[in-house]
């Protein structure tokens, strides 16, 4: 663990009677992707807005790159990049005008700013759309110009608020490639998402947020392990041997065996992976032919369901952010 890029203690923010963020503690180490996972209204956006100095916390403390988000707000602003959930560029302006505007505001000369804007548009595959108004961009292009706008001065830390919400799979993959590219160059990325596979694919560590609180934190492997080692799926050559297989597996694994709708298949939630190897041996010793034998890690969906008691994709209340 290197130094911390983000550290928060007891961060709180309420809007009227809604406790959008109800005491969030985070410790994000520098480098890599940190995922904040939660359903709509969990408090992800509010948290990111406090860290990016757009909202003042009601209580608690937050340090970003060692600077307090309230007392040293300008120091934070000059070191982080923010890509909000909604278009964070001016839709009336063209792509190159948007980037040039930001470059000028960040202190580039007119000439260097134009060069920087052109380089960014090239790198993000937007060179041909440079002189077109952003409102005429497709969803994927708009996300890319949003992210490019956060990189006019390469930030040490970049906040991406739901960067792939509403994107088609191809554009989503492009955004993922950009995130991986930024991390490869040493940046720290904090991204919020409501997609479990996105957190699984990108994030080194994940904080699961629900109702304004962190309810679990760890690598995706650790989170999965917290709900059990995974599940075993077995498929037999001969369905009539299923009863026999069920008896053998139950004895070897010491957990309840579930019989699937498929008459030749069985599955079990595993608590001790050690026993799995032994159970294979027991099956073949009993003369039971197996065509498929798979040990799967639990999905983050299962993790979320176990942790919160409700599925991740459901929307229990309106977005408090």
């Amino acid at each position, binding site marked *: 663990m290197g130094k911390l890029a983000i550290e928060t203690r007891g961060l709180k923010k309420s809007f009227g009677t809604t406790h959008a963020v109800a005491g969030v503690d985070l410790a994000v180490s520098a480098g890599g992707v940190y995922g904040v996972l939660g359903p709509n209204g969990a408090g992800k956006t509010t948290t990111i807005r406090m860290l990016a100095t757009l*909202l003042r916390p009601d209580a608690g403390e937050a340090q970003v790159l060692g600077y307090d988000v309230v007392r040293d707000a300008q120091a934070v602003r000059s070191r982080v990049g923010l890509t909000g959930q909604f*278009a964070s560029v*001016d839709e009336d302006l063209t792509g190159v005008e948007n980037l040039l*505007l930001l470059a*000028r505001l960040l202190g580039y000369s007119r000439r260097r700013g134009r060069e920087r804007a052109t380089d960014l548009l090239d*790198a993000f595959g937007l060179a041909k759309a440079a002189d077109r108004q952003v409102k005429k961009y497709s969803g994927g*292009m708009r996300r890319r110009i949003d992210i490019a706008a956060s*990189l006019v*001065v390469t930030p040490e830390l970049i906040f991406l608020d739901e960067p792939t919400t509403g994107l088609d799979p191809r554009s989503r993959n492009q955004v993922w490639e950009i995130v991986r590219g930024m991390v490869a160059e040493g940046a720290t990325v904090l991204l919020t998402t409501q997609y479990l596979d996105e957190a699984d694919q990108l994030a080194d560590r994940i904080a699961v947020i629900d109702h304004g609180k962190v309810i679990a934190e760890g690598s995706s492997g650790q989170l999965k392990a917290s709900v059990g080692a995974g599940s075993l799926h077995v498929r037999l050559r001969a369905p009539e041997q299923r009863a026999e297989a069920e008896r053998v597996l139950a004895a070897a694994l010491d957990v309840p065996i579930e019989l699937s709708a498929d008459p030749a298949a069985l599955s079990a939630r595993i608590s001790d992976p050690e026993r799995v190897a032994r159970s294979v041996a027991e099956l073949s010793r009993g003369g039971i032919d197996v065509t498929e034998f798979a040990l799967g890690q639990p999905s983050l969906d299962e993790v979320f369901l176990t942790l919160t008691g409700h599925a991740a994709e459901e929307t229990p209340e309106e977005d408090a952010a």
Partner: protein
Amino acid sequence: MNATTAEQASAPVTEDALRSVLLAGERPSRPGPVLTSLTFGWRALLKIKHVPEQLVDVTMFPIMFTLMFTYLFGGALAGSTQAYLQFLLPGILVQANVMTTMNTGITLNTDIQKGVFDRFRALPVWRPSPLVGALLGDVMRYSIGSAIVITLGLVLGFRPEGGAVGVVLSVALLLVFSFCLSWLWTMLSLILRTPNSVAGVSMMLMFPLTFGSNIFVDPKTMPGWLQAVVEVNPITHLATVVRGLMHGSVPAGEIGWVLVSSVLLVAVFGPITMVLYRNKK
């Protein structure tokens, strides 16, 4: 339509190009408040370039008012339309500018709802510069409006005795006052939720302020209580100054009055706007 052609134009992100832009870790020094405000002003001009329809209020509205008042009421009010035009035109110029300032609030309210303002607020720049820049862009709109009104006036027979100097001075003073008055609307736009409510409240304030003044008629014929109201209305003083300068007299006391009220407007509404802006959700 456009989205499909745009998508075809987009190439996939290339890893090497991405690496090179990320590694170009240039950190230019932070620009000062004047430069950032002017840069935001440039943004406002770009928006006028891309959405020229937004100039309708500074062009059509004053033209309509000038023609309407001169030819409908001029003869009845001043004996002849020509005589009335000499009196009315400086007043219409004041009204056009002051009314146009309302648009600042409406535009800002629309703008702030969008994500781009979050980005501006997250930038390490002098905090008021996005607002000051927007107001500077509006000064350009006021100048366009003023040019149109004066040109129309000259065509219709308006003959300023103060000459070009008087006209230029009066427009300069108007721009200063309008810029300062705009802070009232920036404040309102941060308090009210929708552009429509900003427009509604602004109208409610602007109509009595502009009509309850000496813009259209000499207040002599008004009842005493109304004369008292007109007398304290800052718009009256502004119209007196503009009229004076255009017709060759320099009402020093009145100019002082206008400058003091300009400073007061910024001193009161500027800080309130900034507090609201900082704490905006």
